[in-house]
């Protein structure tokens, strides 16, 4: 990337900051407009270069500086044209990805956001209730038998279970856990993050108020569920800001999808030697 930056520019202390822009610069230089324009230098172009240079350098450029900048511009246009003439943009993954991305942005911007009413927002929620449902949450007390402290942590947990069932206070039992013994109501994902997925999965089978044992990534635990909040699909009032944002995103996606459908119609794919089952599948996909 460095070689694309003219030596003269690099020698300018003011533009050392430009190092940060080198990668972008190179990419965009390769994509700058100019294929059909005549390679000409007129008074207007000199003035435009002079102005741009003045901004960049922070002083009025000399004719030599303007000329050097123009030479770079012209050379880059020549290189760009020749690169296109040689077809170097074809099969270039970076160029391809960038063009695709630019067009996708254009398609998304075509969406007219408008204003959704309550029914439209509820429709967003009810189209994907799982996404908006607050998961079940468990408050619990756990007494820990660390696998690093017991040859058989499951047996150790069983022994602890008997003492807890006999009414011994949990605070006096078990191994150290940095998270402590008591947890407020937290979702299974939070317990999975602390003790692993096996522990989190075991919670759903436990009866509240009684002690039972569960494995984790760190050993075994004697667990008592202290309270449960069932999953809840929140009311519109609670979800409104999120639904509003998702409604907009849906509109953008729809705009994108509509543009793609139009492109599929405009550039249909010819099927050659495709088995009928596959042809049907493709047709079902609208391809």
């Amino acid at each position, binding site marked *: 990337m460095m070689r694309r930056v003219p030596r003269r520019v690099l020698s300018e202390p003011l533009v050392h900051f430009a190092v940060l822009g080198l990668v972008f610069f190179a990419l965009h230089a390769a994509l700058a407009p100019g294929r059909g324009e005549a390679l000409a230098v007129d008074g207007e172009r000199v003035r*435009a270069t002079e102005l741009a240079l003045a901004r960049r350098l922070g002083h009025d450029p000399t004719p030599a500086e303007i000329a050097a900048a123009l030479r770079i511009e012209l050379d880059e246009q020549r290189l760009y044209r020749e690169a296109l003439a040689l077809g170097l943009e074809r099969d270039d993954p970076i160029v391809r990805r960038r063009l695709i991305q630019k067009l996708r942005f254009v398609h998304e911007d075509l969406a007219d956001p408008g204003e959704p009413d309550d029914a439209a927002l509820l429709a967003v929620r009810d189209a994907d209730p799982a996404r908006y449902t607050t998961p079940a949450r468990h408050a619990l007390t756990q007494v820990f038998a660390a696998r690093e402290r017991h040859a058989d942590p499951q047996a150790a947990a069983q022994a602890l279970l008997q003492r807890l069932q006999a009414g011994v206070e949990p605070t006096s039992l*078990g191994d150290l856990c940095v998270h402590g*013994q008591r947890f407020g109501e937290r979702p299974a994902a939070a317990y999975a993050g602390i003790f692993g997925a096996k522990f989190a999965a075991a919670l759903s089978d436990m009866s509240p108020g009684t002690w039972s044992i569960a494995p984790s990534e760190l050993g075994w635990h004697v667990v008592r569920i202290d309270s449960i909040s069932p999953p809840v699909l929140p009311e519109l009032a609670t979800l409104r800001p999120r639904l509003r944002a998702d409604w907009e995103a849906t509109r953008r996606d729809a705009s994108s999808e509509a543009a793609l459908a139009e492109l599929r119609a405009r550039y249909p794919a010819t099927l050659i030697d495709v088995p009928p089952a596959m042809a049907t599948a493709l047709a079902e996909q609208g391809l």
Partner: protein
Amino acid sequence: MTRMTRMTRMIAPPLALALPLALAACNNAEPPRTYDDPREPCADHNPQRNLYFGDLHVHTAYSFDAWISDVRTDPAGAYRFARGEEVAGDRLARPLDFAAVTDHAEYLAEVEGCTTPGSLVYDTQRCVDFRAADDAALVQFGLGLNSETPKRFEDLCGPGGLDCPARAAAVWQRVQDAGEQAYDRSAACEFTSLIAYEWSGVRKLANLHRNVIFRTRDVPAAPISHFEAPTAFELWSRLQSECREGLPGCDVLAIPHNSNWSNGNLFVPEVPEGSDPAAVARLRAELEPLLEVYQHKGDSECSNGVSGIGEPDELCDFEKLRTDEFEDCGDGVGSQGILSRGCVSRLDFLRGILLRGMQEEAKLGVNPYRLGVIASTDTHNGTPGKVEEATYRGHFGTLESDPAARLTAAIPAGPRNSPGGLVAVWSEENSREAIFDALRRREVYGTSGPRIAVRMFAAWDLPNDLCERADLVEVADRRGVPMGGVLGERPEGAAPQLVVAAQRDVGTPEHPGSGLARLQIVKGWLDAAGDGHIAVFDVAGAGDETSVDMDTCEPRGAGADALCKVWTDPDHDPTLPTFYYARVIETPTCRWSWRDCLTLPTGERPAICDDPTLPRTISERAWTSPIWVDPS
């Protein structure tokens, strides 16, 4: 933005859905909770504090340097990503508990104007250049932040252009709206958004950046940026007068980052003419209780090769952007840090800053740098919490979207960049108030990415068997102070004791976490002459007994699930100011860059894959906030 009716007090109703077991006795004994930012009381409340992970340094398309990298994820998208939803083709394996979008406050209006077809300035040459990511445009945007008398661009914000302050306020409102959409105000308390921005001042190309984080939705009408407050002192003064004193419900803190890019400038004490040095130090201490020690632009904990911050420490050779022979700034400051140039100062690193804070306190009676520790990502992709080495996708949009591009990129250090880290918070619950208050009392720490759990307390008298007891937190809470605190008055003849307990990250089924290799305590103190000293103690763990298969990145050997130590300082001098913090080191794993190299055929790997100065492994870690012991 729709707002609930403002309530100054909100009494916790009985948990209607909870089964009537009344077993969580300690929860019920607590007084009712109040919220300045009205919400349902959190059902995850735990007086012994839960551990939450978040990211407090996140850029989206609203930041000029992210938009120009083709990033189009907006603040709402970034929050959706933090909550675990798929955004721009990527998703977190584990959602975050909280996040703050911190777009550069400077140029919010200009970026909007330059990228909105039909705006008054859309067709200006500067905007055309900006959209084309012209290097000169980026230089000009960057240099605009490098002035003591910054001015907005005349062609964009002058006559005939945008009303930039008004447009910036409008974009700021969208930032707030995105935070509102993401904040879970239900009793589930699944996710907390904090309204925030980045103040992006630079001096002599040395970094002075701060993230400004608000406690509630009560925030100033426009962000106080480098244009309104060209120096840090002006920023603090205006945050104090316009938020903390001038706006009911408003509270705020500012978190400096990348001191490693500051050539000493970020933490050299500065007193504006005519000001009382102690008052300035007090203001700074009030507003800046934390330092972001790690993020995508490297580590700011410590460095070998800088004088005055202790003996060489091999674990300080960690995620450094600079590998050149640098000059030591000594007692001076340098320039060009953001270009990875100029001298390096002891004040570029946590250890030197903490020592300097105690030296200032000896002079002024107030410690301006009693700093807790966090880490974050500084993502410019709108992807908060995307910290795993194994799934790193770069930081600059499409420019770093494949292995070869990442390994050969140059901004700011390509293959030496890091995915960044997380901030961990010990908080009673996941509400804005509780998270913010934990940040303010510094009961927080940073990790280089993994979700290592670590607690630290100090006391004058701890039971020696604390690591064998399940009630460690209860005992330590009663007898001492947690990380971030200041240990109280010393009983005659007592020496400070620390207890540090860490648990490994269990990871996910796809990417299991690593074990723990080492628990360390870092001690800093001033001697009788006021000179600073650092000592590092290995207190638990087997050390370097594991390794990695460099062809497959499979670990060889496992570290510990948990490490714990009750430690008494053998050499504590009660007449000398002292601090302690802990460092938890994981067993080594493959660094993202080596994982990228392995995805490429041997013959097609860039030269950096064979560069011995680029580490192939990383010893991930956590750094706790310190505990201070003042002289008695």
